[in-house]
């Protein structure tokens, strides 16, 4: 048992800090993701080159999460959530379906940052997300349940085959909860997630696969990952003339990369 008195000089005689002290190797996994190794630091601020926690951008072009049927639903649905017209790109034109595919195939889809343990009573609206499904599981179950609902309501049609007005009617029914789905899917919960994820794909950095050519940013006038606006702070009411820039630059100065 430690006594009640302090020994202010204890550290000087080497009695406290374990001999394993020193700057440990940088973690290969960063916080926010579980599983980084324990480390002990003493004597300096640690830093190691080549370990910057760069964003996990999307790669490839083929769909890897959505089946053909699911993709047809997603393209039809997000095309109604954000339709295309001369004002700016629609969600399909902005590559949002591909963004969703990569998000659901990855850590987000797996429910990273979601607590999914039971039991799972329904809860009040104020208690928020109470599904046992990860986002990927919820999309899979919801799309199947919506297609069953649409099939039985519209003479066997699929959602993607409905007229735009009927698609909007179904989406509004999901949004309000008026359409009750089977398969353990809460329609309002799924609609809220789909709309949020669609806007994320529309307005996030193109590195994640959506916001193609930064078209949504151009439409609203957001300059993107711009770093320094100091000279514009006091220029009240002036339009900032910079075209948007993403983490991979912009076509004008990166030889066509976007």
């Amino acid at each position: 048992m430690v006594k009640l008195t302090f020994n202010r000089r204890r550290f000087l005689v080497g009695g406290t800090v374990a001999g394993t002290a020193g700057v440990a190797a940088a973690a290969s996994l960063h916080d926010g993701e579980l599983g980084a190794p324990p480390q002990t630091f003493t004597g300096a601020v640690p830093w190691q080159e080549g370990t910057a926690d760069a964003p996990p951008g999307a790669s490839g072009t083929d769909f890897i999460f959505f089946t053909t049927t699911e993709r047809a639903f997603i393209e039809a649905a997000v095309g109604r959530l954000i339709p295309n017209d001369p004002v700016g790109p629609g969600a399909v034109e902005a590559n949002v379906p591909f963004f969703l595919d990569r998000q659901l195939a990855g850590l987000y889809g797996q429910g990273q940052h979601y607590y999914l343990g039971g039991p799972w009573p329904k809860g009040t609206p104020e208690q928020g997300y109470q599904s046992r499904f990860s986002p990927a599981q919820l999309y899979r179950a919801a799309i199947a349940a919506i297609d069953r609902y649409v099939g039985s309501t519209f003479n066997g049609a699929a959602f993607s085959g409905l007229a735009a007005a009927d698609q909007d009617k179904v989406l509004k029914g999901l949004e309000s909860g008026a359409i009750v789905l089977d398969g353990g899917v809460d329609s309002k919960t799924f609609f809220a997630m789909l709309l949020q994820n669609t806007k994320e794909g529309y307005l996030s950095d193109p590195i994640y696969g959506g916001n193609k050519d930064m078209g949504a940013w151009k439409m609203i006038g957001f300059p993107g990952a711009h770093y320094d606006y100091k000279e514009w702070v006091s220029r009240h009411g002036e339009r900032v003339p910079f075209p948007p820039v993403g983490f991979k630059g912009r076509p004008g100065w990166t030889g066509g990369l976007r």
Partner: protein
Amino acid sequence: MTTTLPPVDAVLVGFGWTGAIMGQQLCDEGLSVVALERGAWRDTPTDFATTFAQDELRYMWRHHLFQNVSDDTLTIRNNTSQQALPMRHLGSFLLGTGVGSGGVHWNGQIWRFLPSDFLTKSHNQQRYGAKSVTDYDLTVQDWGVTYDELEPFYDQFDKLCGTSGTAGNLKGQIQPGGNPFEGPRSSEYPTPAMPQTYAPTLFGVAAAGLGHHPFPHPTGNLSEAYTNPLGAQLGACTYCGFCEKFGCGNYSKASPQTTVLPYLMAKPNFTLKTESEVLKVELTPDRKRATGVTYVNSAGEEFFQPAEMVILSAYVLHNVRLMLLSGIGQPYDPNAGTGQVGRNYAYQTTSSVNVFFDDKILNPFIGAGALATVIDDFNGDNFDHTGLGFIGGGYIAGMVTGGRPIEMMYTPQGTPAWGLEWKHAAAKNYLKSFAIATHGSCMSHRGNYLDLDPTYRDTFGRPMLRMTFDFTDNEHKMSDYLTDRAAEVARAMNPREIKLNRRTGSWNVIPYQTTHNTGGAIMGDNPGNSVVNKYLQLWDVPNVFSLGAGAFPQNAGYNPTGTVAALTYHAAATIKSQYLKTPGPLVQA
């Protein structure tokens, strides 16, 4: 199997703002200090470099810097008639983790509470009668510490951060351009206020026209380069608009990383262990003394770290839970009104008014975490509450923290959430709209508290914390009053239209509000009304100190960090001057 480590003078449980400040103070006294942080190491160039820090998806919506709730969360409900269910996804508040914790992804809003805020019960009682502090089952009380006692320590934190602002009250003399309602400051801000962009400027003109007293928000996003007393250097803010929910790549936002760690990490008597989660504070059989803490690291190894002092420097919710899990003190029972641990949990009551122009380009993406023009005319008791039916208040701010387009896409009243109409509204209004925020107090209430959940457990098998909370009629009346005042300023700006986003209904976990959770380990003048004394020392276990906003008996209408830091410095000063000489209770019960 538990490995017992060599003893140390002090162990810090959690390593954000309070842990860094207390660690630095104790190490300078020559104590051996070990900090245990359950998250990972973080530094500016590795974790939030300017080349990738402005990532709304990853940091805001994918929670990259926040506590991962997949293995440990808390349960929530509005009242005791409901079953508490897990907070399965972060929303209303964004818990920190990792070195620096919430100090990494805060906005940098640095406030002092009003002198009267520390006397919530006695001040209101005196001015508005005994009923004003017991209406709606309020359980407000005085802090047991005064503004005057804390002022030197507020000042110390300002100098650590290099806070940018304009003083409104220097040693009792009201200053032009500052907040005339603030308590007296012993010195001017270390750096001048940030120049304001268009929207906050328009807000200030309109507010002044209504007879209010606008001033620049005091900020830890620095207006110019600054070197603090620990030798840490901060740079001038570039207004990139990614502060709250993000780390600053430019060393412009005060954080443990930019103000304390370069100094503290170099100390030979300081050790930091990351990915190390404290499971329990170990007590002697009579529960009057802590012997150290038991923790487990991410490799699954369990250790006992003996220590002369245990400093609970984790977030409010974790500190309270750790006390409950360790058998410290008596848990609060809302029916019997007995027990102190978990009592007087409170929050922050926010609302906003969106303002839409046709003829003014506001460029909302030019922003900073505390870039705002503020009026304090309706905060605390800065206005006469007679006949209003509530106590408390808040500041109203024309504020532009940034124009992150997923989160901050304001559309007019009645605009659908999707479809062509939404898209057209977004395209039309993004550059020409902004939000006026109201940031209101939250009084404590008999039914709002923290305890352990009877059903849900974390990966270690420990009960989760259970939060029972709802806004009371006092908070709704107060917030409506603030929202109406904000709307008056909004209309005085002559916009095309405005939209009121009132705080209605029960507390809802989904939409982000603030990470200003308070109470549960409150301070007071005796063990019958509090968990800690004015020096944040536990009445029941005097070699344990509980830092942070858990000590707030109720929450004022300001962001908490300035007061959290001042309380920490105040505690450290007395630990150094008294406790280390004679370990034991600093206030006799």
